[in-house]
């Protein structure tokens, strides 16, 4: 087992109180597994990714543990986390396109980054990795401004995985790209896993269609909590949580037409996480909700590797 997250709680400090962005999430990530993490804006998916690598000044680790290859990560100790960052756990950030230093050629930037970690560059290996994500070796002599969005995204992927991390978190890496670039980036990520350069991966996105292409299993989050987690095929064909069902129902497929069959969205919006309501957080938008939903539903494993947090699914 690579990564075990147990009841993780991370809150944001604001002037008006604590925002419970991540309120008790637990899951396992096996060796070689790609876990897709899906949900609406504000459901806590980016917070989860950030918590695993670096808590910024506003974030507070309230409870829960994260175990990576047998070691418990010192989440709230910024300095102690340095031993794990990039070596054991790495991140391709949402802002990859602007993550590169505009005044450095890519090659020099990589040399400097590696030197800061006390590692020397193996040029052949670097070329091999660039080829793996579909980049020519001459990108090393170019400035970031000379690369397209998709190329920058892939260059950052190579940089993030240079130290062969156990877990790579890819946060919305495809959301700013066109469909053909998306396909290339997703292909490159799978390639990194298949070649063993990263052991496992968490692929964060709001696009369920794309997730289903890369992920072995998918976890759907809602308002800071886990809603459902299952192997990809099971989650997309037999979802049990009403939220997952409605989310899949709102996806237009190519060829779907309003004239033939209008799709429906989900009425309402997620609750504020400043003082979240007790009980199931989806109940105000849920067509199945009844009196029992005022009580918080536990996460129950209804089938092997299929967990749901809903009273109606059990």
């Amino acid at each position, binding site marked *: 087992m690579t990564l075990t997250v147990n009841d993780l709680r991370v809150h944001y400090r604001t002037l008006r109180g604590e925002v419970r962005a991540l309120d008790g999430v637990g899951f396992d990530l096996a060796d070689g597994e790609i876990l897709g993490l899906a949900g609406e804006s504000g459901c806590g998916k980016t917070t989860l990714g950030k918590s695993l690598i670096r808590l910024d000044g506003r974030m507070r680790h309230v409870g829960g543990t994260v175990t990576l290859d047998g070691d418990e990560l010192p989440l709230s100790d910024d300095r102690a986390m340095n031993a794990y960052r990039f070596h054991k756990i790495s991140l391709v950030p949402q802002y990859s396109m602007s993550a590169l230093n505009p005044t450095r050629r890519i090659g020099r930037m990589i040399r400097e980054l590696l030197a800061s970690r006390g590692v020397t560059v193996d040029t052949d290996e670097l070329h091999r990795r660039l080829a793996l994500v579909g980049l020519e070796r001459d990108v090393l002599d170019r400035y970031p401004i000379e690369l397209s969005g998709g190329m920058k995204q892939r260059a950052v992927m190579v940089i993030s995985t240079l130290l062969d991390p156990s877990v790579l978190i890819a946060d919305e890496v495809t959301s700013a790209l066109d469909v053909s670039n998306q*396909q290339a980036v997703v292909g490159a990520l799978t390639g990194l896993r298949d070649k063993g350069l990263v052991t496992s991966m968490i692929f964060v996105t709001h696009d369920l269609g794309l997730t289903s292409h890369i992920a072995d299993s998918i976890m759907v989050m809602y308002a800071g909590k886990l809603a459902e987690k299952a192997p990809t095929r099971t989650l997309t064909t037999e979802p049990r949580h009403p939220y997952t069902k409605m989310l899949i129902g709102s996806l237009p497929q190519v060829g779907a037409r309003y004239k033939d069959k209008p799709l429906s969205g989900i009425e309402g919006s997620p609750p504020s996480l400043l003082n979240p309501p007790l009980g199931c957080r989806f109940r105000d938008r849920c067509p199945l909700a009844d009196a029992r939903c005022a009580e918080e539903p536990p996460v129950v494993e209804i089938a092997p590797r299929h967990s749901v947090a809903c009273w109606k699914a059990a």
Partner: protein
Amino acid sequence: MLTLDRVTKTFRAGAFGGGSTTAVDRVSFEAAPGELVSLIGESGSGKSTIGRMVLGLTRASSGSLTLDGEQVRPGKDFYRRVQGVFQDPFSCYNPVFKADRVFALVRRAYHPGVPDKEWADRVEKAVRDVRLDPGQVLGRYPHQLSGGQLQRLLIARALLLDLRFLVADEITSMLDASTRIDVLNLLAGLKERGLGVLYITHDLSLGTYLAERTVVLRNGRVVERGDTQKVFGNPLHPYTRTLLAAVPRLNEPWTSAEPVEVCAFHEGGAPDTDLYETEPDHFVACAGLPDCGRTSA
């Protein structure tokens, strides 16, 4: 009826304006009232430039854009009938003021003589038309509303004018899957009431969901256009096929695009125009195969 006839836009590029880039190259298409035309292309294909030209925000370098037979000429009279909604609803509102101030601005500019009571009724009707509850959205600040609500308020603002044509430029790309579909269904409803819509997107599945007609753009040129069913049911241009194959579908692996064996454009005798009409309302450009143009020209 919006008509574009061989519209071209060239931007000056380079440090001293020495070079030039052709962003839109001889694009022609029509959008009738009650029709939704989707404009599909990757970044840099010129789709937003076309939207801006239709709105009169940028002037075309050559070619003509007409609305109901009149040249597009920005001005109060024009904006009464044509309005645009853009990608980022959060940056369209002043965070200091309440969101419904966008309605007050419309009133001041276009309907100064309307009495308060009547104006309030009109606003309420427009808000209901975009399927929002006036009690929930009026009098709120932008940060208290969701992206979908803000986007719908902008459409409501356009409805307060004598709107005939709406340019929707990537209006759902910043919204969540659950609210995105509500905005699309709203557009479908408006179009059924006779509004013409130009829907600009890079997302094929959203384009096909609503559009009667589709225009596929690449590097500023139309590669294929016509009836949505025909263009995506039987794509003839290699680029359309590549785009279609790259769309992620739930539970279906990606397939590689089927190669194009014959160039439909040259097969059709390479007409003088840029596009060849292979069947009624299905136009395709030259596929750019290695042997294209050798026999003709």
